[in-house]
């Protein structure tokens, strides 16, 4: 096996058998799954006992407009002689609803008394039913035949379909919701990957330097091979971890879904979506829109670019992290050099999230071209279709930049890794860059 291959293998093997790697790999999908499953589970769980509400209706008309259901029980009560607040009703019931006048004339003649703050749900339940009742009554009062039919037919929900045109003018249905979700996910993953594994590269280099093993290895491998072996080995660890995360998250959330609800999570999500929709026709359209939206996104392209920016961004920053690691004598000294490297990453992350709202704006444009931010920001723009020249420019700038940062980092690395006991400054590092040998 080639030497760089041996180094990659060692970096990979020693990391994937570490306890922290195994724990992280298996615990994180559990967390992801929990984040997905628990809110769903909570939202489907019913309130155990129904709340009873006393209805004091001075008109004797509107109380019938409030049907009881599993959550709320409405009981008609006589108006107490004393003040409602001091009456026996207030202690016996969850809330007291007072209808003090004809709602046809005075729409604000409804008051809800309670000792605890009532839920918005209850308030809107009452308001909805009463307004529907009044609306109905008013319609009947117009004496126009078939009025309800007319109104129903006149109600037309507008559904905007977004159509993207390809260069031949052919229509492709898109969904900006789907695009936004994919963009945010890809961006977040790249950001996480650069940070976590870039820092691991740095720590690895510092370890080799402080325990002087580098002096032994350097006699059989050149510094560039040593640095690249570490960077590539750790990249593979990262890819392995993400792959396992994706796989395990899917498996765990489905298993959990089946265990808890007797159906898989995807099914559950669909039914949850359905139940919130009053109009089944609209649900159907939304689902159809999602499916068409997914079809409208060029996944081969997105995945290809994702892998490219994933690696490009990581290589760019990992080599800088390696250079920092080589320049210092111990990990605590890394702080002062870390900042200039981490600032562009964090900036790119924020820029990416502002760009989500306007993927073609100037911030998004420039940040997706500049190589230090492009791996993170370009992923936001890709699902929204980016002109070819911009893609090519961004990709080639990133390639040029990571080649040159790797080259520069290798120069600093070569000098720094064998230098001890010197307080390193930026000036010193600049000097190393200019060493011809």
């Amino acid at each position: 096996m080639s030497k760089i291959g041996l180094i990659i293998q060692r970096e990979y093997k020693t990391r994937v058998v570490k306890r922290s790697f195994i724990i992280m790999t298996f615990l994180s999908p559990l967390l992801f799954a929990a984040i997905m499953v628990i809110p769903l589970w909570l939202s489907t769980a019913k309130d155990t006992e129904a709340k009873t509400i006393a209805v004091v209706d001075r008109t004797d008309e509107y109380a019938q407009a409030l049907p009881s259901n599993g959550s709320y029980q409405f009981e008609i009560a006589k108006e107490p002689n004393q003040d409602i607040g001091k009456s026996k009703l207030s202690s016996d019931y969850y809330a007291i609803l007072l209808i003090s006048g004809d709602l046809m004339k005075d729409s604000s003649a409804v008051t809800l008394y309670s000792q605890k703050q009532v839920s918005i749900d209850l308030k809107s339940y009452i308001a909805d039913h009463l307004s529907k009742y009044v609306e109905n009554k008013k319609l009947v009062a117009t004496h126009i035949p078939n009025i309800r039919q007319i109104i129903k037919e006149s109600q037309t929900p507008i559904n905007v379909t977004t159509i993207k045109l390809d260069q031949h003018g052919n229509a492709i249905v898109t969904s900006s919701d789907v695009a936004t979700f994919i963009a945010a996910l890809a961006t977040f993953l790249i950001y996480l990957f650069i940070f976590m594994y870039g820092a691991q590269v740095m720590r690895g280099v510092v370890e080799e330097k402080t325990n002087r093993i580098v002096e032994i290895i350097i006699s059989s491998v050149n510094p560039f091979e040593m640095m690249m072996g570490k960077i590539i080995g750790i990249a593979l660890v990262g890819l392995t971890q993400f792959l396992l995360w994706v796989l395990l998250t899917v498996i765990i959330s489905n298993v959990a879904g089946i265990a808890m609800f007797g159906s898989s999570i995807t099914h559950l999500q669909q039914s949850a979506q359905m139940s919130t929709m009053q109009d089944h026709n609209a649900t159907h359209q939304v689902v159809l829109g999602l499916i068409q939206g997914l079809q409208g996104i060029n996944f081969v392209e997105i995945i290809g670019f994702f892998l490219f920016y994933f690696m490009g961004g990581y290589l760019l920053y990992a080599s800088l992290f390696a250079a920092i690691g080589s320049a210092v004598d111990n990990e605590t000294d890394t702080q002062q050099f870390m900042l200039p490297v981490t600032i562009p990453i964090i900036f790119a992350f924020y820029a990416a999230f502002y760009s989500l709202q306007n993927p073609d704006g100037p911030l998004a444009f420039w940040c997706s071209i500049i190589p230090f931010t492009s791996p993170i920001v370009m992923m936001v723009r890709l699902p929204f279709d980016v002109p070819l020249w911009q893609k090519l420019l961004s990709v080639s700038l990133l390639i040029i930049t990571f080649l040159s940062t790797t080259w520069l980092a290798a120069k600093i690395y070569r000098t720094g890794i064998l230098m001890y006991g010197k307080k390193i400054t930026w000036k010193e590092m600049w000097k190393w860059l200019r060493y011809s040998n």
Partner: protein
Amino acid sequence: MSFLEIQHVTKQYSNHLALDSVSLSIERNSIYGLLGPNGAGKTTLIRIINQITAPDEGAIFLEGKPLRSNDIRRIGYLPEERGLYKKMKVGEQVLYLAQLKGLSKAEATQRLKKWFDRLDMQSWWDKKVEELSKGMQQKVQFIITVMHEPELLIFDEPFSGFDPVNADIMKREMVRLRDAGATIIFSTHNMESVEELCDTITLINRSKVVLQGNVNQIRQQFRTHIYRIVLEGTFENIVPAEYFRILDQTIINQHTSLRIETINSTANEVIASLLPHYTLLSFEEEIPSMNDIFINIVKEPIPVIES
């Protein structure tokens, strides 16, 4: 032709001169000692030979040809500050480093087993490095240095951290490696080991070579012409004083101990002059140890450079 030739190597660091025109030549199949006080420049010279740093001036020749970067394969280097991957298992680690040095896995395994057997370390194979003591780690590192059987071995302070038993084992192994054909350079403060092991030495002090040559010749060169004599009975001045001067005289249990300095005479002449009168119990020349020579030279004040 010598095996390794170092010619006028100079190395300047930003604020001090680490090596000032250092030259030395090392014969094939010898053990060469690099001596000097702390900070004299020994490690810098070793790092230059290992091509970890480059000299500012001067050249290095291996078998008459300028040292090239591939020649590093022919060198085994044990750095002064030793380090291994702490969390890695001993066996895995030595195998990895052996493979990096170009041995096949099978070959490396076979050689390492042999070394582990010889140094009685079989049980360490599956231990993590951090579980070993410092001396044990050093033994592991020694094996790492020699396992690819390089022609030139460079040990920087090989005995520091070893107990006397293990230091002896290391000395034995160094001699064995030399006999098997290797050329060895080692730096040390341990002068006893220099007398035992080295054929030739170079003493570097304040970046300069101050003493160089064959160990025995150096010791001869630093002879003080002082002898210790033990006689039976008491000493009376019946011997002509032209041969020697008495520095010291003590009488213990009917024996006389003399410490004398010869005056333009050989040991044989001194003995010949004594024999007719006394029974000699012992006669021994006081040859300075390398330790004395080292301390003498290093303690000398810096010569004032005339402008």
